[in-house]
């Protein structure tokens, strides 16, 4: 090394050729870690992009402007309300609804109206540029109508105002949304007070004895039990033992409550712990009892933190599917459930059901359902973050 001819190198006592190999190894390692995180994040982007590309079309639906005649004959046999040549184009679901239309607006009776009519899912898929199966005779009509602007994509109201349906163009998320709301209502009514009380007990009242430690270990284990096993519990205990109605938001909500419990407990404890001891001491100094101090001084201060944790728990419960499948919440539910005792389905379960349907039209609805679900989840999490930021107090 000393004899290297290159003068600049031999002048440099720190010249060390063995290092270049190690440096390139170090560089490769760094690049590897960057690749990892870039991959993980680009997956996130790709995944969300994929859902949006697949789901966006479902927010529009094809309608066609044709003459519809309303009279006794067509009410008795709705097929006859439209021109024969449109029969394989218009949605069966729309025709089926003609009597209801007349009932709602009796002035339609004995008139012929030029109306925007829902078309079936094959025509809709044609309009969206997807694969479709349409006979050439109908295809010609469709092309004509499309060229005249009498066949159009319009905002898909049905998706939000209808429940599930075996007719793709008539299926919507409504009953699943209501099912989700009822189920989560049960979940929060049970899990929130239970979780907060447990946290208050563990943080404020419990002595550090065996029983307390046992409870703590248990909460940790509870959080790690695979969700599907809660479904087994729900099935064996709530349905078979207590005889609660299968597929109902009541059973689903109770099952989810048990799963959400550890999340609420852990975050509530953290929130309680962040309330400084000086607050408690001040309370005792005023001669208040422990319960009064906790109730009037500690809990209000910990409340934002507790809410944050509960919202995150709620979001978790909202996305959960597996245990609900086990207790039967994937039933076909066209009409929204009226109470927590009726059979219902929830958003993720509806997504699951649609994902398994053979008709292609359901794919976009599945993805659109996912978009709705993810939007709600993201909003909930954003709300939790805002709450935390807003009430974050540096003691």
């Amino acid at each position, binding site marked *: 090394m000393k004899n290297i001819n290159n003068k600049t190198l031999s002048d440099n006592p720190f010249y060390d050729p063995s290092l270049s190999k190690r440096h390139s190894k170090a560089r490769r390692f760094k690049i590897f870690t960057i*690749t*990892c995180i870039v991959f993980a*994040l680009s997956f996130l982007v790709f995944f969300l992009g994929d859902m949006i590309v697949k789901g966006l079309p479902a927010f529009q639906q094809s309608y066609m402007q044709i003459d519809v005649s309303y009279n006794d004959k067509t009410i008795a046999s709705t097929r006859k309300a439209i021109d024969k040549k449109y029969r394989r184009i218009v949605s069966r679901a729309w025709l089926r609804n003609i009597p209801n239309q007349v009932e709602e607006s009796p002035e339609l009776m004995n008139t012929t109206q030029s109306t925007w009519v829902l078309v079936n899912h094959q025509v809709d898929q044609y309009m969206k540029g997807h694969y479709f199966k349409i006979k050439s005779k109908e295809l010609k009509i469709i092309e004509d109508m499309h060229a005249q602007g009498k066949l159009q994509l319009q905002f898909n109201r049905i998706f939000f105002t209808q429940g599930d349906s075996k007719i793709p163009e008539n299926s919507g998320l409504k009953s699943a949304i209501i099912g989700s709301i009822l189920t989560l209502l049960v979940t929060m009514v049970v899990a929130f007070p239970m979780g907060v009380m447990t946290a208050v007990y563990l943080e404020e009242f419990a002595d550090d004895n065996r029983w307390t430690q046992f409870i703590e270990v248990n909460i940790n284990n509870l959080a790690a039990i695979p969700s*599907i096993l809660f479904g087994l519990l729900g099935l*064996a205990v709530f349905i078979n033992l207590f005889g609660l109605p299968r597929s109902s938001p009541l059973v689903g909500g109770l099952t989810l409550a*048990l799963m959400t419990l550890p999340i609420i407990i852990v975050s509530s404890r953290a929130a309680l712990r962040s309330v400084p001891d000086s607050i408690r001491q001040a309370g005792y100094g005023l001669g208040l009892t422990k319960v009064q101090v906790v109730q009037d001084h500690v809990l209000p201060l910990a409340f934002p933190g507790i809410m944050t944790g509960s919202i995150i728990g709620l979001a978790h419960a909202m996305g959960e599917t597996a245990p609900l499948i*086990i207790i039967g919440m994937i039933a076909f539910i066209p009409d929204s459930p009226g109470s927590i005792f009726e059979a219902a389905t929830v958003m993720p379960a509806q997504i699951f059901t649609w*994902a398994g349907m053979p008709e292609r039209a359901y794919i976009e609805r*599945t993805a659109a359902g996912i978009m709705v679900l993810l939007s709600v989840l993201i909003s909930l999490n954003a709300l939790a973050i805002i709450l935390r930021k807003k009430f974050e107090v540096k003691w």
Partner: protein
Amino acid sequence: MKAFESKKRHNEIKEQLIKFTLITAASVSILTTFGVLFSILFEAIEFFQMRSFWYFITGTEWSPGVADSKFGALPIFSGTFIITLIAMAVALPIGLGSAIFMSEYASPKLRSKLKPLLEILAGIPTVVYGFFAAITVAPFIVNFFTLLGVQASFNSALASGIVMGIMIIPVISSLSDDVISAVPDSQRKASLALGMTMSETIKNIVLPSALPGIISATLLGLSKALGETMIVVMAAGLRPNLSWNILEDMTTVTVRIVDALVGDHEFNSPDTLSAFALGLILFIVTLVLNIISVALIRKFKEKYKINTL
């Protein structure tokens, strides 16, 4: 005076009552764990009274619903094992690499942005992953291998394994990032001052110190993979398949649990009860993994005297 006394007594009773309510609430979590355990255990015992436990563990044929039904769960276990293995093969390097980048190379500002982004992955419902696996990844794999002249199933273990791995990345990266960041800086400095490069320091000093935490994160991820249901229900097969070929369809414990319980079966038939036998195994395995994981993290915390993990 008397009124005062009685008010005080009244208060005392109220205090006791509230305390009692709190203890009761706290005990519900215990009740739940044991509820899960016993509700599964009793039904499983009932199953094993009808069918041989030994054949369940070692038998290779799973054929419920037929006259001569057999319940050998080995092919189900093997399918679960292989899909989990694929998931870990995806999640472990990517999760750990991401954790290393966030804790060692990224600025604190960048880290505080990356971490929540990664955690979005953990917040996506599994049914969504399942749809993605079935509708996007599985066909891609089939097409890709067809190009190579190899036939792959639309329900291949590979598709659900990969997607499951992606789901588990944040489980591993988040906890690993915490433990790697908790390794004292003095150790990095000592190594760098000896003329070590950053990557040598990470590989030889930081990672070995963080190892208990990293193993703990891995076990948690493993437990999550084993219990994952929706991805495999939607993207993996139903067929018990004792094979190493990850392009074939395979089934898992959770898929068979769902399959056994969905639909109108008679509850006390071995077909239905087999779900509880499978559930019992799943419960035990995930519980053991969690207990080891927690013990390892505790050891790590004690070693570096941290309470914040």
